[in-house]
């Protein structure tokens, strides 16, 4: 009887906690999403108290919006490049740091550090490194590798590369930790058996490690992609979307549409597009990567 009572009491507690979580989810995610969806069918302007229904006009406009296409192109290139680089480096780092001694544990903490820093702080730090008279140019000039400073943030291609490096640096901390966790789930006996069979290091990686860290890879790749698709803070600080809007991510473009051009309605429509794209990409990548997951 006491057990049944305490179970009922526990269930009520869990229900209350779930209700709070569900309420917060509704308030801060579902409701704003629905409001944004509604706004995307209007000509809402932050300066006017009323707005008119415009049907699918905002969505139609996106087809011919060259600036949107450019920002989407930049965002997708960055997302793919950074995801590949951050995950490749993450796997390498995880394999190097997959030890239990104190020094390796300290190094794991250091590797994760970029992930806990605010994007704004990271942006400012890297700005002092990458500007014309920044640390990188000064160092390269002092050791005689270059004669004049390189515009790391001042030419479209180099700015893309620079942002890619910075975002990769941030994400590598996360990917390293995910792959470390995945590596710790790989049975040591498999490596022992492979060693007895005479497998090389590469064969052990390709046949054992890589297939068995697939679940970690699914998480790591998906979250990396989503992180870059909504990137705002680092780019704002590093380049502000320049030069000549060449590094303007879709998130920056949405903010510009809403708060500079006063086009809340159209900005909401673009936000809906990005949401749909992110969801589609995340679902496709997840289902693709899950196919190659191996369970023991």
């Amino acid at each position: 009887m006491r057990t049944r009572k305490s179970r009922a009491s526990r269930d009520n507690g869990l229900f209350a906690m779930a209700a709070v979580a569900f309420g917060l989810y509704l308030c801060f995610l579902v409701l704003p999403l629905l409001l944004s969806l509604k706004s995307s069918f209007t000509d809402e302007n932050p300066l006017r108290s009323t707005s008119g229904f415009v049907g699918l006009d905002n969505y139609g406009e996106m087809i011919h919006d060259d600036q949107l296409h450019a920002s989407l192109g930049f965002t997708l290139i960055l997302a793919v490049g950074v995801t590949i680089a951050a995950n490749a480096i993450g796997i390498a780092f995880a394999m190097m740091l997959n030890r239990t001694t104190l020094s390796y544990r300290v190094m794991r903490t250091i590797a994760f550090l970029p992930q806990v820093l605010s994007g704004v702080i990271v942006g400012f730090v890297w700005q002092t490194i990458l500007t014309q008279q920044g640390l990188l140019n000064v160092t390269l000039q002092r050791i005689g590798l270059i004669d004049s400073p390189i515009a790391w943030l001042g030419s479209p291609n180099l700015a893309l590369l620079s942002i890619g490096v910075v975002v990769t640096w941030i994400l590598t901390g996360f990917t390293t930790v995910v792959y470390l966790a995945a590596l710790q789930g790989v049975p040591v006996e498999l490596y022992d058996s492979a060693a007895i069979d005479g497998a090389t290091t590469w064969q052990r990686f390709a046949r054992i490690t890589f297939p068995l860290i697939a679940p970690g890879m699914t998480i790591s790749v998906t979250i990396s992609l989503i992180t870059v698709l909504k990137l705002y803070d680092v780019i704002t600080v590093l380049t502000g979307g320049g030069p000549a809007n060449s590094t303007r991510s879709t998130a920056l473009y949405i903010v510009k549409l809403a708060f500079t051009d006063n086009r809340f309605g159209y900005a909401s429509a673009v936000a809906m597009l990005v949401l749909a794209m992110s969801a589609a990409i995340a679902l496709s990548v997840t289902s693709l990567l899950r196919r190659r997951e191996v369970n023991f």
Partner: protein
Amino acid sequence: MIRRTMLAACVVGALALTTACTNGSTGGTGTLTYMTFETPSLNSTFWNDSIAAAVKDAPGVKINRITSPSTDRDGYAKQLQASGQFPDLLQSITPSTFAGAGLLVPYDQAWVDANFLLPQGNALKGKVYIPPTNSQIIPEVFYNKELFAKAGVEPPKTWADFLTVCEKLKAAGITPMELGGGDPFAASMPLVGILSADVLGKNPQWLQERYAGKVKFSDANVIAAVEKYRKLVTSGYFDEGALGVKYADSITQFTGGKAAMYMMGSWFLGSVPKDDADNFGAFPVPTADGSVVIPFAVGGSMAISSKTKDLDGATRFAQAWSLDPGNLKALIESDGAFPMLKGKTLDDYNVTVSQVFKDSFAYVTDKNTKVAAIGWASNDDAMPPGLNDQLYAASQALFTSADVKGEMAKLDAAWDTATK
């Protein structure tokens, strides 16, 4: 049951409190919300002292100061408006952005006429929404006298002379022009100067005519003006990596003698090193025939919300604040603002300014052709929302691209989208 009732009452109370805090523009009976911003020189102490002084002249008014999280006052004001918290008073916003939506009330014209040198300096359709307390030249060409002497050149009067000066400086191993191209607004300064001098200098109504669709950025005269900027770029008069130089670094580099000239708004006067101020001079962006054209923008103090519940109090406070010379002192000394209060000399502001400030101020007080600084004017010549960004982007793009016609066509397309 009692517990449930108490809980429900608390939730309702909390919701009511939240609603009370977020709705309405005033912070309480008789309290006016005043949106300000902060910079190193216009800091919290400056605002609190200036508010205290103005309140003395506007008895009965209470001010609740709120601070914009960045210097983008317009953006913050839009967020406040969107969330139903539009302030009663808004410092240094762009009136054209808000007046069109009926969010601002104009000042009494007789009061404006009685107190300011250029009463209509930032008027919109004849109405003044921000008292025209100060002005800027955007841009003028600052130069390093020592580097000019080293290259054996004098400040030029015509565009041809200007190119000769650039060439001689380059030949002497001196970078002719500094450019903080990493910040879009700073990157646009040469283009703003050339367009204002060449296009608006010949047709001061050009921006009005652009609104009317009578002229376009892709017209031959505009293309020719922009080609002048391209000439500066392709001749190597800017540092090759100028688009990687941040605005703050460009100031340091110019004042540190790394380049001979710097096209920038007159706010740069606040950054002229005090111990080396005599080494710097300024001249207007040269025109083809040597005529003096001053790209000009009249700034001001605060706008008054049309939603305010105490229009009389808001007006009395805003008028008192706007006419206090003490409030302009910081702007003059740190921001290179040129005061526009009627019947006052520089001495009345108790300021210490350099000779280059006085020389620049002379361009404001002298009789010459003053035109709207394209992209910076806040009067009827203000560009549509978003066009400034497009102009900045074009300036950066034209640093590496020769497609002048293409960039001007993009500006035309953006203008048409913004005004449709």
